[in-house]
């Protein structure tokens, strides 16, 4: 199945040529379509094969991540999630992820690099939650692998603030991703003082990064369903 496309030649290309080639979508494969709200954040509205994304820390991060991989898996792509031992697949399904194409590698331990490399070879979307700091040489190898195999690497920078407050969390990934999505504001509706239930969350997502081709953008992501009047009984006339 080895198509004679630009990939086969890529080791011979210089790095500038390589970047140019990847910008031109040489193999003609379109990117992975995103949910409409998120598509508005990213130029072209889809995840470009071979690119890296980062999901920044903050409340609502997991919901954002799930929404990010939902549309591609529903359209037939596979996703592998590495290093999450606490992800709830049920929430993933509610977000629209096709569970039959979602593989979970909860605790790769010391072999995370081999696992990530093997999965980047074959799976279109690889979500990596780094448990330890990644050496620059390793990160460059992974990036090269992703570019060569036209797969997408999504890095999750989790909130690791356990020390003194107001210190930025330690960065596990030494490279700059193409695009960073960060949940900035996270509000729940439907729960009141002693009654109601969590119904709907609104997450404000900010996008930054060098591949944005413009100023930072933001959008609002809704999770769950709008509270019915019955539940929001707090609003008396």
């Amino acid at each position, binding site marked *: 199945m080895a198509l004679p496309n630009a990939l086969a030649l890529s080791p011979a290309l210089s790095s500038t040529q390589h970047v140019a080639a990847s910008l031109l979508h040489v193999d003609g494969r379109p990117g992975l379509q995103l949910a409409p709200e998120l598509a508005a954040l990213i130029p072209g509205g889809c995840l470009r094969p071979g690119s890296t994304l980062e999901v920044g820390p903050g409340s609502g991060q*997991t919901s954002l991540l799930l929404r990010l991989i939902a549309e591609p898996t529903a359209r037939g792509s596979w996703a592998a999630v590495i290093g999450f031992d*606490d992800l*709830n697949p049920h*929430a993933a399904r509610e977000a629209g992820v096709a569970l039959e194409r979602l593989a979970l590698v909860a605790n790769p331990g010391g072999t995370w690099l081999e696992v990530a490399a093997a999965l980047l070879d*074959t799976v279109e979307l690889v979500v990596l939650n780094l448990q330890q700091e990644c050496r620059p040489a390793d990160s460059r190898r992974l990036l090269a692998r992703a570019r060569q195999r036209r797969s997408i690497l999504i890095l999750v920078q989790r909130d690791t603030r356990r020390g003194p407050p*107001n210190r930025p969390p330690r960065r596990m990934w030494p490279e700059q991703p193409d695009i960073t999505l960060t949940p900035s504001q996270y509000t729940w509706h439907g729960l009141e003082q002693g009654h109601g239930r969590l119904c709907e969350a609104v997450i404000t997502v900010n996008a930054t990064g060098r591949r944005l081709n413009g100023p930072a953008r933001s959008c609002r992501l809704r999770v*769950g369903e709008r509270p019915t009047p019955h539940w929001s009984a707090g609003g008396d006339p």
Partner: protein
Amino acid sequence: MRFLAVSFPHWPITAAGCSPSVSAAVIESGRVQHYSPAAYRDGVRTGQRRREAKGHSPELITLAPNPHLDAQQFEPIVATLIQVVPRLELTKPGLCTLAATGPARYYGGEVELIDELRCALEELGAQSLDTKHEAREISGARIGIADSRFGAQLAAEHGTDGYLVAPGRTREFLADLPISTLELDELSTIAHRLGIETLGQFAQLPTRSVLTRFGSAAATAHALARGLDPTPLAIHQPAVELAVSSELDPPAQRVDIASFAAKRLSAELIEILDRHGLACTQLRIEAATEHGEELCRIWRASPVFDAETIVERVRWQLSGWLDSTDPALAKPTAGVSLLRLIADEVAGANDLQISLWGELSQADRRAVRGLDRVSGLLGPAAVFTALISGGRSPADRVQLVPWGQPPPSIEPPMPWPGHVPEPMPSVIHPDPIPIEVHGVQGPVRVTSRGEISGSPTQLRQPGGNWAPVIAWAGPWLVDEHWWEPDTAQRVARFQLTTKAEVAEQSRAPVDVAAGASHAYLCCVQQNSWWIEATYD
């Protein structure tokens, strides 16, 4: 070419030890899959719901599917038949076929060949007369001969016992059978709408039109309906030896360990075949123990083998051997130390598409191969897929299935009264986080009647600062498994949303309108609180 089929209809029922006169059915995912003759007489059919089947036959014994047992019970029969005809091809437990031309000439005719097989089976039955159900099981064998494997199988199952379809008349024999015997549901539905009810009507359609309208799977089915054996036409003997083998060190004593090794081997074999643009239609599996005992079986697939079905066949073959309960059958004295997979018969991969309906895409096959590799790297319990099942707590509602293992049959999720309402929390903490929850008058307590001592106003995680509670709801009492003292649990659940933690030093006024809020699903049991899951 002439083919012979030995079929045990309702094998899963007989393997489970039920007599044909007992009304029994194998039920998977709430639907009838196999039934005994007695159940058939009562009106039980494939695809019926459990309750409907029970309605037809109130005495119905329901069985869970057990492919392991099916294979294990079938092995003595295969061992007996193979002494009569060496090149026996297994399709699944309960069905085997063979090319009959050679053996028939050897035994002096097709009728004689059938007699020979029947004698061997009767001898086996006599040997194990003390175990009653086996004697019956063997008498349930049906044998048929026709021009194609499919024809022979149907001749065995639908004709009178020992049924011979005359050479060249297989198509005529098949003509009256319903189209559903092809076991392609979508094709049957469409054909039914087109007014095509029998195989004879289907066979009359022009071959090219069937291929263009329905695709390759239906074209294969069309060949079957015309009484042809579709694979031999495309078969060629492999020029290179398409075989992979692996030494197991330490030797595998159990089936699951051996089949895990088989997983890697099968991926290797498929990769070699892919490289040559071939697909395997007949596979030989050889296993040997340290003490030199060997077991070799030939398996056929319809239409082709993929990595998963190869592993399944290895599992079937070995479970009949390693876990054999039959004293007459030589049980190996040591663990399996060598496993060898040989592609016996191959065809061009493009001639035999995996299947038209629900086929694997290129991306699927690539991903499956990669995940097989990772699970080989990390061990069997490292890669998971998830299924949704029933339960109250968020953790109960998810079932993780190790990669490569057949998913357990889960009853479709019913409404579960008392479950945590949707949306689901996106993070379930594997180790619950103990917390303190305070109201205006100190710690919040919940009485056994579900009353709380005060409204929660602030929450503290271990090592953290107090975070003000914005809103809360609860307690939702859960009293589960009270009939089993070991697993009984009585907890109360709360949903809580909080502001970000307030740093001790900067007692800034809390701005309720802005900033991140956290939402938790908390549990309280005997006045200790913990966070079970987070709505992240």
